[in-house]
């Protein structure tokens, strides 16, 4: 099992999740963060922290979101560790809650 960051995070990236994570499992990209499934200890603390409600347990992913499991694993290998909370992306308000932001993901 692991927890997975999904679409809602893209272009918002509040990083509230980072501070609470006891396993230092988050990895940071330009406009998205992901969870390294090898580091995640399934505690679930990050879920209620996320203002965009972007984080789900693997077992609770909808079929539409299932591909985020692989995407998290893949990007976690490339992206650097993030340990401290950062300010959200400027102008995140206009992206908050918008569906299907994957096209905007910057790798």
């Amino acid at each position, binding site marked *: 099992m692991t927890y997975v960051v999904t679409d809602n995070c893209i272009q918002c990236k509040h990083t509230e999740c980072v501070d609470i994570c006891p396993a*230092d499992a988050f990895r940071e990209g330009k406009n998205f963060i992901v969870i390294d499934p090898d580091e995640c200890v399934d505690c*679930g603390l990050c879920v*209620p922290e996320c203002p965009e409600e972007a984080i789900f347990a693997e077992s609770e992913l909808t079929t539409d979101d299932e591909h985020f499991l692989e995407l998290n694993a893949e990007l976690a290998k490339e992206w650097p560790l993030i340990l401290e909370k950062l300010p959200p992306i400027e102008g995140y308000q206009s992206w908050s809650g918008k569906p299907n932001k994957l096209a905007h993901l910057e790798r």
Partner: protein
Amino acid sequence: MKSEYDVIFIGAGLGGLTAASLIAQKGKKVLVIDKHNIAGGYATNFKRKDFEFDVSLHSFDGVVKGGNSYKIIEASGVADKIEFLGHDTLYHYQCGDIDIKVKHQDIEGYKKQLVHYFPEEEGNIERLFSEADKNYKDMSGFLYSTKRFFLRIMATPLFYRRILKYEHYTVDDYFSRYTKNEKLKAALSAQWSYYGLPAKDLAFGYFSYPFIDYLRFGGYSIKGGSQKLSNALVDTIVEHGGEVQLASPVTKIVTNEKNKIIGIESKKTGFVRAKKIVSNISPYAVVSLTGDEQFDQKFKQNLKQLKPSISGFQVYLGLNCTLDKLGVKKDEYIRFFSPTLSQREQFDNLKNGNVFEDKTGWSINYFSNVDDSLVSPGKSSLGLFTLVGTSNWHSLSKMEYREKKQELTQVLIDKASKVLPGLVDHIEVCEAGTPRTMTKFTNNPGGAIYGFEQNIKQSGLFRRFPQKYPLKGLYQVGAWTFPGAGFIGTMLSAKILVDRYF
């Protein structure tokens, strides 16, 4: 989800769950709501690789059929759902030349060992236990009485008079009535870390019930870990028509213009109505969720003056060998190490974070010796525990924090390696819970593991933070209120709350 409940519980810790179960069984509609995605607060398990660990439970006193403490297990509807595993050795205590192994339900054997080390104190030891037994009886009489609560209070001076007699006693005051021997007093209060204060500051009233309960009725683990107890309570609540909503931090306690409670808010549930709310979270959080202006100055002043308890640091180790490979016998379980005699000195060091040298007490728990269901065959698990001050952890940057956590983990492993040569070669999983971890998982301020400190000003029926707030419809249960922390403490707080107000 309904839009209205009779009672809403904020926090699914043991206090909240037990009270919810008691009230649901009375036919009331209850909702328990917790921020975390698993129920139990400190009474939860976690997994790492092949190993599962109980976050908190070292020893649960007295939970054996026929014992007093078992009554609350029965009343909360979980007696048939969980199994308790007795500890062959209640604890093994070492301090200087004193080396005492207290066996399961063997108070006479324990006294004999004390007399062996302190032959001149034999009469005193006999007398102090005789009175402690009577005090235990008074306490149990009060706690488990089936009489209405106010009748119980009225009856206290007559039938449970020791509760009042020792109200202002510290543990040390009590033992000092019988002996001047510091070593003996330290041995008698060997379990002081369970209560979070040294004997000289710890309220006797709070200590005295489990003190005898452990010795007479034994210490226990819950088969499968304390998560099993929490889950069993959830099941009972649900069986009686109640609901448990997880992963939903309560963001507001809502009052109307007449200062009466009308419900709670959380992001997930929105506004949910209830005339009664029971908090299982810290009173500080209650004030901030309700709004500071809802409480009068006197209440806030009192709250400000109360001292929260100390925190703890636990290293959870999963080993790739069985414990007997390290020379640990099957009947061993808890070991308390006390490098110096003075508990107060140790406590001051612990509190200030001076835990890196060999000046402070610590303990080992051989978890898998009691419950091997949480490890794979051929493997084992144990815990290394120390109390530690709540400050000096929360303001660190993540890197500094990581280092400090690593450093203290290493200190405890080094200490344990002296007792268990070869330990380091067998560690497969190593995890540590710090004061910061405690706060992360429970929101308890500073990572306090025992609610408010149990000094004589903050302990007991009349001095503990009350179960009823000055706001109509708002109550408190769990470690922060009467009687206090601990598995039995929080479950009893639920019983008293319900006996008294529901």
